[in-house]
């Protein structure tokens, strides 16, 4: 009996010894240097692998951040400043703060605002449509309404309103990763600063045609008349190619331009109710369903 126990002990201890010695030697012989910080950074990242940072997923981000001398040019839109700060601390650097942003759709050409001129009969994708022609309405610049941006959004933050033929961003869910901006063939999505209390003013149109043509194509188009730019006391509005643009960093949210715009192309969102009775919003409340597709 005792011998069995002794054999047991001897046998196992010898095995253990052998094991550790051999492993140690092998480990010494085949040593590989690896930057352990990559793993640390990766573990800090949200792991959504959305590519919103412009790199091929979170691991690539971690590798590049570690390699780079400063993290200034890196930003993870999903994790936001909080995560960037953590990474910065982990790497012993200062984080750069970025204003929180949100995607806005610079077009409001719903079915009742612009008429269809032809009927697209191909694969329902904005990219496919844009590769073939200017679109199924008179406006060559507006939303094609096939929802490429919807399907590319990893956060379910953008939705196609089938009845009105336009996409809408869910501000709560949008993390400003920019995937929709990249995919939209008409380049009508912009990441704009969220603004104080989420309030912002922007031109919800991308039409660069001359006023008359734009007007004919769509009833809420920006016709480049310039009234808004004139009325703006802060020089926040510029007109280029018959299209107004509001610089968010200059805009003080006074909303004078909104009343000035003859076509209701300027949008103000998240202001107290009073303003919600602008013609735009009225229309939002009574959507006229007219999808002829």
């Amino acid at each position, binding site marked *: 009996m005792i011998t069995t126990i002794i054999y047991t002990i001897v046998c196992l201890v010898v095995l253990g010894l052998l094991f550790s010695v*051999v492993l140690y030697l*092998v480990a010494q012989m085949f040593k590989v240097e690896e930057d352990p910080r990559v793993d640390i950074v990766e573990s800090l990242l949200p792991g959504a692998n959305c590519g919103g940072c412009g790199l091929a997923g979170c691991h690539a981000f971690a590798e590049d951040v570690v390699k780079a001398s400063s993290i200034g040019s890196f930003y993870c839109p999903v994790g936001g400043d909080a995560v960037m700060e953590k990474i910065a601390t982990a790497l012993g650097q200062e984080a750069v703060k970025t204003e929180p942003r949100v995607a806005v759709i610079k077009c409001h050409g719903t079915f009742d605002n612009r008429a269809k001129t032809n009927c697209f009969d191909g694969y329902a994708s904005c990219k496919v449509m844009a590769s073939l022609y200017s679109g199924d309405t008179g406006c060559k610049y507006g939303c094609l309404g096939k929802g490429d941006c919807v399907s590319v959004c990893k956060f379910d933050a953008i939705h196609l309103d089938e009845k009105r033929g336009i996409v809408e961003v869910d501000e709560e869910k949008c993390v400003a990763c920019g995937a929709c901006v990249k995919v939209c063939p008409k380049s009508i999505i912009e990441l704009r600063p969220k603004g104080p209390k989420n309030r912002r003013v922007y031109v919800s149109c991308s039409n660069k045609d001359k006023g008359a043509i734009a007007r004919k194509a769509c009833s809420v188009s920006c016709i480049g008349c310039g009234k808004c730019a004139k009325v703006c006391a802060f020089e926040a509005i510029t007109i280029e190619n018959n299209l107004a643009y509001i610089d968010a960093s200059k805009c003080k949210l006074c909303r004078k331009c909104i009343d000035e715009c003859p076509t209701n192309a300027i949008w103000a969102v998240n202001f107290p109710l009073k303003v919600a009775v602008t013609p735009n919003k009225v229309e939002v409340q009574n959507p006229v369903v007219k999808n002829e597709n």
Partner: protein
Amino acid sequence: MEYIIIIISAVFVNNIVLSQFLGICPFLGVSQKVNTALGMSAAVTFVMALSTLATYLLQYYVLVPLGIEFLQTVSFILVIAGLVQMVEIILKKISPALYQALGIFLPLITTNCCVLGVALLVVNNEFTFGSDPHMLNLGQSVVYTVACALGYGLAITLFAGIREQLDLNNIPKVFRGVPIALIVTGIMAMAFIGFAGIV
């Protein structure tokens, strides 16, 4: 002839994954891509052959003479763990690409039941290859082990091919990932039952 029977039996008829239920976790885990699956099968084959060799010798030249067969589990797993870690360290140095591909699963080979499972089967079970029940000798053991590993490789490679194709398909959401993989495995097991009785 006996070796052929051993091989056919271990690869097809009593496939280690599809009918013995060994090594399922890495089977499900490392089968996203055919290339990884191939790498994994190579690693498993290597580790299995090596560890069965070692454990066979350990069993018959240490444990049995000393009368401490009950130490099987502990000593076998220690040997296997050591081997795997060695392979891991060496692989990391020699082929970082393969190391990257197999990722965290290399250490998991240790906890791959099929390595320990086959090592135990070989020394504990009687087999009926070609003749009446008997214990395997060293040569047979190694051939059997390698055949088991090949069977594992076959199953995981076919499976990885299927999963690659499934990635292109529109699987209903709740079934994505493990459930569909299990269903595929189940149907593969069903298909492999066709080999029943061949040896």
